[in-house]
């Protein structure tokens, strides 16, 4: 049996998205900036895609900028808010310790340019406390950026509350909603969001395409200069097939959002309950405030990469926050931020589900993972010592 349980890394393209895209690889090839009928046909597709994305975020179509993906949108949102702040002498930025590297590394760059970066605690359940944000905001705070939901441990942040605080204190609020979009409902108006990032390939759209919502009144800084595409804020002939595919995937995901979330979270809960029966296992992240598809556990006494290799040999695709999978010797910054010691963080396993997964696949995972854990513990000197210490 082959089971794809790494949907937080990327998802399969939906057939609706694929069908919607195909003509744009073929007969509809005009440049949307061209005046002629070929170009205008492509321009209409872009415009309709923009409407679709905006509708499901409760935004205005003019507030949507298409980008090459989540990373670019995160970069542009943060750099733009920083530039706006710097003009008024505001160089303090608040974020969290568990952001994606697209955010954290952009903040690192700004730090080198003289910005002061403050990262909020997320505590053991991985949730930001709004009170901490209230305390952290200063008169020179240029931006607050807090991810909507975490890609590793799936925790969903109290975005509406955080957005409300920022609006009240007149600070720009960005949220990286790459993992949330298409999986849980988002309303940029009700949640007082100024800037928001989405990425198509996390909701069964194509890779290499994303969008940035930018509330009217906030001026973006270009990362790419050139032509006047995207209201002059992102140059380059648009990825028309990608954008059309993203819109089709988003439409499908948002239309079915409740039914999908119910079905996927039922599978998630089965996995969490079943896998927590393995001795010395820990659930990472908040039990309820959690993405429908996210399962993340640590199994003490073993290391994550070896777990992934054995699972892969049984046909199961998963992920881990172990150092060995990150290319360094440090385990995931997210697992360390929720207070896990290094040795336990090395033994993490993330299974991320989508509506394409089935109950039979959950049965298979529930038989495979305990076998893999037992096999690795059998050869682990750490596990032996833990047993002896008892």
């Amino acid at each position: 049996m082959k089971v794809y349980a790494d949907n937080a890394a990327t998802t399969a393209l939906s057939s609706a998205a694929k069908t919607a895209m195909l003509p744009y690889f073929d007969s509809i090839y005009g440049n949307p900036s061209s005046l002629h009928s070929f170009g205008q046909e492509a321009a209409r597709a872009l415009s309709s895609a923009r409407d679709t994305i905006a509708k499901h975020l409760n935004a205005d179509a003019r507030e949507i900028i298409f980008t090459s993906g989540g990373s670019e949108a995160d970069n542009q949102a943060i750099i733009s808010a920083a530039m706006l702040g710097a003009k008024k002498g505001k160089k303090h930025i608040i974020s969290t310790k568990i952001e994606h590297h697209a955010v954290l590394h952009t903040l690192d760059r700004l730090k080198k340019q003289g910005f002061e970066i403050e990262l909020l605690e997320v505590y053991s359940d991985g949730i930001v406390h709004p009170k901490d944000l209230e305390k952290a905001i200063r008169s020179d705070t240029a931006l607050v950026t807090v991810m909507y939901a975490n890609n590793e441990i799936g925790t969903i942040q109290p975005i509406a509350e955080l957005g409300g605080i920022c609006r009240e204190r007149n600070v720009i609020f960005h949220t990286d909603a790459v993992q949330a979009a298409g999986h849980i409902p988002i309303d940029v108006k009700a949640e007082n969001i100024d800037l928001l990032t989405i990425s198509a390939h996390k909701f069964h759209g194509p890779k290499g395409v994303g969008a940035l919502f930018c509330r009217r009144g906030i001026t973006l800084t270009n990362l790419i200069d050139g032509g006047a595409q995207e209201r002059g804020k992102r140059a380059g002939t648009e990825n028309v097939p990608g954008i059309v595919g993203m819109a089709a995937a988003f439409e499908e995901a948002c239309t079915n959002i409740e039914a999908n979330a119910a079905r996927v979270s039922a599978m998630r809960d089965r996995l969490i309950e079943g896998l927590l029966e393995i001795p010395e296992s820990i659930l990472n992240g908040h039990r309820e405030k959690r993405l429908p598809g996210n399962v993340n556990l640590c199994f003490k006494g073993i290391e994550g990469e070896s777990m992934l290799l054995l699972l892969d040999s049984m046909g199961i695709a998963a992920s881990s926050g172990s150092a060995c999978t990150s290319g360094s010797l440090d385990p995931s910054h997210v697992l360390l931020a929720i207070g896990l010691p290094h040795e336990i963080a090395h033994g993490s396993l993330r299974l991320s589900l989508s509506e394409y997964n089935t109950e039979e696949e959950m049965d298979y995972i529930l038989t495979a993972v305990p076998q893999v854990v037992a096999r690795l513990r059998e050869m682990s000197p750490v596990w032996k010592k833990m047993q002896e210490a008892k």
Partner: protein
Amino acid sequence: MMYSEKVMDHFMNPRNVGEIEDADGIGEVGNARCGDIMRIYIKVDNGIITDVKFKTFGCGSAIASSSMATEMIKGKPIEEALALTNKAVAEALDGLPPVKMHCSVLAEEAVKAAVKDYFDKKGIAYDPKEFPDCESCGYCEIDKCG
């Protein structure tokens, strides 16, 4: 896959996993913080390593390196075990990815730590310089291990 077929074979079917109850030497190296711990047990008879077993906590290449290292010293004179290098272990595995070279270093160190333990237990004199300590390999520096 980033690993060679040999590495995958030794990971999926590790040789000499286990413990030796009345081992003549036991060597343990690495730390859980960095994500790899190896423990090697040897049985020595007349200067020959007659049996060897290992237990490893770590990634695929750590388990494969332990397995290969035990195969390379089994049935060999102590001197040959002392001459084992991490490069030889990595080569026998048809190479390791650069970020995983420290796993072969750990395997070399674990073998040597087991021999040192055997010398200590038997009161056999040796030159301490022959036994590298964890700091001397340098790979941790490269990988910025805490």
